[in-house]
């Protein structure tokens, strides 16, 4: 057994026998890895008796779950209604350009993964984005680029 598989088994074990635990157990694995490694599903099947097909069906249904690794920082650009009317689409195209994203949502150097989210609930500060756990409001294109660069630098230190 790979060490990753062993680790995942340890994360999964406490959820054994709890009714309706599919989503919490997937959340617990993703909290550690940032995504759901392939090994997750057979382990959940063995440990919890939930068929892989079912857990995979749940994982692909909910927007929160990712099936591929993510960058060091996750940028959640809000496209809720308030952000939308305040120009989030322009921010999005500038941000993709700035990060050099083409077909994928992660930068080649693995520094950033971009996600579009429906609403962060900070509508009065629209347009808004969240990087990791920090929310930034009243964005302009310039301000957004500055924030991205300062986050990038923080990581270098």
């Amino acid at each position, binding site marked *: 057994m790979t060490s990753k598989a062993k680790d995942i088994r340890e994360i999964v074990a406490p959820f054994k026998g709890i*009714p*309706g*635990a*599919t*989503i*919490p157990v*997937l*959340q617990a694995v993703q909290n550690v890895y940032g995504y759901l490694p392939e090994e997750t599903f057979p382990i959940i099947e063995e440990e919890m008796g*939930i068929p892989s097909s079912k857990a995979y*069906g*749940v994982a692909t*249904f*909910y*927007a*929160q*779950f990712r099936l591929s690794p993510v960058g060091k920082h996750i940028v959640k650009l809000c*496209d*809720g*209604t*308030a952000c*939308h*009317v*305040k*120009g989030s689409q*322009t921010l999005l*195209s*500038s941000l993709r350009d700035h990060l050099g994203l083409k077909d994928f949502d992660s930068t080649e150097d693995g520094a950033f993964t971009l996600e579009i*989210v*429906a*609403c*962060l*609930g*900070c*509508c*009065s*500060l*629209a347009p*808004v984005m969240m990087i990791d*756990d*920090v*929310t*930034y*409001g009243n964005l*302009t*294109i*310039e301000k957004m680029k500055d924030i991205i660069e300062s986050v990038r630098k923080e990581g270098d230190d």
Partner: protein
Amino acid sequence: MSRTIVRIGYASCGIAAGAKDVLSVVERRMKKGSRKVQLQKTGCIGICFDEPIVEVINDLGQWTYRKVDPARMERIYDEHVLGGVPVYEWTVGELSTDGKKAEKPVFEHQRRIALRNTGVIDPESIEAYLERQGYKALEKVIREMNPDSVIKEIMDSGLRGRGGAGFPTGLKWSFCKKAAGDKKYLICNADEGDPGAFMDRNLLEGDPHSVLEGMIIAAHTIGASEGYIYCRAEYPLAIRRLKIAIEQAREKGYLGDSILGTDLSFDIRLKEGAGAFVCGEETALIASIEGERGMPRIRPPFPAEAGLWGKPTNNNNVETYANIPWIILMGAKEFQKFGIKSSRGTKVFSLAGKINRGGLVEVPMGTTLRRIIFEIGGGIPGDRKFKAVQLGGPSGGCIPTHLLDTPVDYESIMAHGAIMGSGGMVVMDENTCMVEIARYFLSFTQNESCGKCTFCRVGTLRMLEILERITRGDGRESDIDELKDLAELIRTSSLCGLGQGAPNPVLTTLKYFENEYHAHIVEKKCPAGACRELTTFIIDEEACRACGLCRKACPSDAIEGKPGVKHVIVQDRCIKCGSCREVCPFDAVGTG
């Protein structure tokens, strides 16, 4: 002078605006030995546009400071906290100690029932909640009332579900109480999914115990022994504060076995959503708690008879529960005093979009949209014209200028094609394109459709494709009729509210702004200048005063000009963001 309280609005919005740095200043200053100062972190008081907010309270009164940064905080600390003299230039308006009277119209037309403690108490302290009559309603229910009298009180109050559908709460409880079964469940729907809505987030971040107390009262009334709060994962602070509140309530004996020494047992578990809008629908939410894909089920049977794990289940929204303790303590008659017709009490709205004072407001039902948007919300920034207000999120609709005097009650809003919804109000001005907004909502519902019903899954995609081509300038004359046909089919052939309501944004924009659709389809123009393919920004030579503001604002360096030389937009560098139009003080930027 006795002690001085310094309160900092420490909800997600305040933190995003920089409250953390302000807090550090106060903490550092307090360490230097001013023991008469007490620091409180509260939820959001609602004036989010002025965040970070700091309040200073002493024997002489209560002052609210706006847009506080660390430098302002230092001076406020020196002059007001230590010196006793308020820094008037930064205050919002003086509230009297009972929190009712305010000089600013922001609070003048508001009446806070659900938000009675939000922004006032420390949400992480059960003592602070207890000081404000917290858990007194629960005690009253247990010692002086029986389940039937509780249901009667709630029915008499006229409280209707605040999640949007407006079903009478007392009636819902009575169904679940009557349902046969030894095991019953209670759910609090905190999966606030409407984009542009943040009422429940603020309530949970600002006063989680009021929601818990409402739930415990409901559990006692219907006979439920287990409860779930289903909260979206996008609200990490709300989840953290709920966890703290649940733990505190257990320690004090309000949750768990033999609550307040009775044989009542009830406990609450927190479930984090995983990002699916459809889980706001109660049967989809139940499926999600059970660990399934969040797909709605056919009703009947209703959850009151067969809900979570097939057992009778009562499900209410966050705000509905938060109203319960107030109604029990103050009485149905007091609650009835607010509101009009069949909509009683107050409603919390989140005001956002093109509005001067965005934030959270709680007003009596029946307050007009005009009052909420213009008197409380301060109208539209930059003297631009109001165009519409969007109510009810992706299942709601856009209400135009000539209907601004509509009172906000369930039936009046519905009569105009929108829905009350959970309380999101997004204001749009003349620069917002209504066709593009319809496209935006359709792309949202298309994306969030669970896929169960064909018309919702495929029909919304067909509608979206039509709207996309209209906003691109490829619209056809037949498109409007086709949109209307599809809308009717989707509305009548979908199982749940997501599909049934999905066409509403299109139908209301067609109803009130059909001319904009025609402009896109026939003239290939976007009157609002929002659809990129159809818009060219041009600076009017006559009106331009060469002030340079647009040149500075342009993110793509597409504007050329110097002081004294009229400015010009270089079209092949223009990304059509409209920043130049937003900043121009002379209305010189137009669209062609």
